[in-house]
């Protein structure tokens, strides 16, 4: 699932490893989340939001139309 984690992390001046340490997961998990290859639980989503000082909306919200288009592809 596409998200804004990578953009927000770079804006916060953090590396994947730093974000991983802050959220208590491995760097590989952060990498997979950024690529949209792993869907994190709500708890991890919140931990990422707290780490980069953004809201859930800003990081993970996808417009319904865009999401439907993506599903049809």
């Amino acid at each position: 699932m596409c998200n804004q984690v990578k953009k927000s992390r770079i804006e916060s001046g953090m590396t994947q490893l730093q974000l991983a340490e802050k959220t208590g997961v491995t760097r590989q998990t952060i990498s997979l989340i950024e690529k949209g290859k792993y869907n994190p639980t709500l708890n991890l989503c919140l931990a990422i939001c707290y780490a980069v000082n953004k809201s859930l909306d800003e990081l993970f919200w996808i417009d319904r139309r865009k999401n439907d288009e993506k599903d049809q592809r």
Partner: protein
Amino acid sequence: MKKIKDERLNLVTLKNVRIAYLFQTVGILAIVIYTQFTSGPNAGFESPLFLVLILSSSLFLFLQMRVSADIEASEKKRKKPRPYYLYVILSLAFGVLMGLIIYLTDRQNPISALISGIVFFVCFLASYSVMYYLKKKRSSDDDDLD
């Protein structure tokens, strides 16, 4: 070994455990069947591996009841679980029926028929009790939603 905190790795570990469980079960089954072929049909059933297989399967089925209760609750219309005494009567009926069948096949051993009947009654009652508890819990959870 370090404790895994990463949720993704926990999921991967669970998948690995599932594969290992499947492999182990197939292995035990193969050994039991092999023992039956080489040392006679009873040797397989007398093997402790067979006991492990039966106990782990029973444990798995008991644990899986939580999943069945959820599926049943979402598939059927929500309703209160049947009263507990019905489950006791049903278990008693199974126990008596099985005891009778065993008594009719071997009339010289009424004690073994009685013991078998009691075992069937206890086994059915235990599984029905777990199911009743889960259904009641699910029903009270649903009531909280109203």
